Each structure stands twice: as structure tokens, then as C-alpha cells.
């Protein structure tokens, strides 16, 4: 039952989406006169806000060997995260 509802929803969403694609390809919902400004504004609006980049506030070193070198030099324990994908880009 859940699968059936899910499939119906998939087709609804894709129907709306494909409608948008056809509208974009045929008529262009954004006029030639507005497109440059609209695209620039949209790109700016979709940049990640600072609170999505808190990961960058951690002082990451380049690799494990560098971490061990600094660990010995500063007598600090080492925090190592290892995982699938790329945690720095969010593709993980």
C-alpha cells in the first residue's frame, strides 16, 4: 500500500516537474530582459549560510601523518573522523 501511495506521489511530482520543463523549454517563464538579474539573484540566494558551514570552523589538518606530527609537537590527542564519501562537501 505504502509503495502504491509512494509511486502515485512520484508521478505527481514528476508530472509537475515535467510541466515545468516543457514550460521552460517552450515559452521560458523568465523573460530575456530579466534572466541575467534573476539568475544572479537566485545563485546568491542559494549560497549556503554561515550556519551550514560550521564544519569549516574546526581546525582540520591535511592528513593523518600531519595530525600525528602535530600531536607529538603539541602533546595533544588526535580526533580522527573516517567515513564514506566526502564530509567536507556534504556528499557523504
Amino acid at each position, binding site marked *: 500500500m505504502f509503495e502504491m501511495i509512494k509511486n502515485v506521489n512520484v508521478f505527481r511530482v514528476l508530472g509537475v516537474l515535467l510541466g515545468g520543463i516543457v514550460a521552460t523549454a517552450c515559452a521560458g517563464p523568465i523573460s530575456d530582459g530579466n534572466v541575467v538579474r534573476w539568475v544572479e539573484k537566485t545563485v546568491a540566494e542559494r549560497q549556503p549560510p554561515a550556519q551550514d558551514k560550521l564544519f569549516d570552523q574546526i581546525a582540520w589538518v591535511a592528513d593523518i601523518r600531519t595530525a600525528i606530527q602535530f600531536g607529538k609537537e603539541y602533546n595533544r590527542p588526535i580526533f580522527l573522523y573516517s567515513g564514506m564519501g566526502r564530509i567536507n*562537501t556534504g556528499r557523504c
Partner: protein
Amino acid sequence: MRAGPLSDGRVINILNRNFVCVYAANEDYTGPNPLVGAEERAELARIRQEGYAKKLSVGDVRAYVLTPDGHTHDTVPTEKVAVTLDMLQWTVGQFKPQPGPPVVPPARQSVPPPAPDDAVALHLISRGDDRGSWGEFPAENWIVLAREDWSKLLPAGEVTLGQTWELDHGVGVRILRYFYPQTENNYADLDRIEQHQLTAKALSVRDGVVTARIDGFMKGHHSFYSGRKADPLGAAIVGVMTFAPGKPPSLQLVTTSAAYGTRPFKVTVQTVPHTTR
């Protein structure tokens, strides 16, 4: 973990003041074409072996505390901020490091790869409209187009006002392959993209500089988890490309509507400066 402890101010503070921090992407260390050298791979393998020997819960996705000389001390629970914080504080109590400034300055961790001076670096940001869990922070990709690639995006000869042309299919799909929201599976094979088109139309030609709008779409499929059933993927796209003859173009693309199964998402792509190699 990034959406939880590694975005928490208290965790970040204790890490920066007391620890040396490092992360490793497993695919850089394993598989047929590892990106890191043999010595670096051996270190991660050793750390895991030491974890097994200590009967720790070693796995593909783990946080570890190592001793200052690099030996496996313990694993760090990462599901809840409070538990992670407790573990880090307990570790500080054990090792008693001298708290102080970070050992290196914190820096942006997603940066364009070095590329030839005349290459075009594109920064892609993709994000589901949902928030929390997979939607908590955006996904990013970097796409580098060498001169021989971006040249194929431009029309041959002099451009006239209103002229239209299709962007090269092969170069286009290399950009559109990353048009999917945040998922656990990130194998973005080109053959996932079933149909796509990007069409340019010259809006202005001034002093040899062409500004063109781009309209297009992509349809394909993508699996949320590796090896599982793929869900349909599609996006309508609008953009702008500015170029002078023989010079690298500036490109911006945005989705006007996009869905992955029932999940709406948004993508932007833009040209950014890059370091030269």
C-alpha cells in the same frame, strides 16, 4: 556527524583548543585507485587494526581518539552532541593537553581543485528542500572544464544577436551528473542521465562579449543508497553564459524546478576563481 556534533559550537571549541583534528574519506584510502600515498594508507589501516586489537567498534564510519603519538585510544560516539561532548571532555581529562589556539587556522574545507590557468572551475550546490537529517546542510561538487571542454560550449564563428545553439552534449552531462540532492550514495555515473539538453540564445553582443541565456532540462535516475533501487530524477534549468571569443566563459545555472522521486531540490552552478597548477 557533520549535521550533529561537528556543527556544535561546544564540540568545535573543545576540539580546536585541545585536539589535533583530521578527517579521511575512505575512498581516498582504499579501492583500485586510492588518492593518498602508501604511507598514509598504512596509517589508517594501522589505526583500525589497533582498534580491532582493543576490541573497539571499528567500522567504515567512525570517529576515533588517538594518543598524541598516533595510537588508537578509543572511538567517539557521534549520534548525540551531549554524548560526543562527554567523551571529548573525558579524553581531555585523561591526556591533560595544554589548551590553546588551534594547531592550524580553520579554513574552508570545500575549495576548487587546482587547475590549469585557462580552465573553468564550476561550483555546484545542491540541496533538498527538506531540512534536518539529509537536508541539514547542502552538498557541493567541483567541476573543472579544461580549454578543450569549455570551447565546446561556445558556437563556432561570429555570434549574432538572437542566435541559438546547443551546448555540447558530452560537456553538458558532466555538469548535470551532479544534479541530485544529498544522498548517501554519491556514485554519479554519467549513464544515470537518460536525457538532457542545454540550449543557448545570444541576448547581447557588445564589444565582442556575448551574453547568452541557457534553457534546458535533465532526466535520469539515482539510488539513495548504493546498490539499491534508483528513483527518478529530473530538473528544469535556466542560466546565463558570458564569453568573449577564445576566452574562458563565465557560466551560471539554476534549477527552476527539480525533483528526486517525491523530494524537491534546488541546484546552482557558477564559475569561480581557482588556484593554478
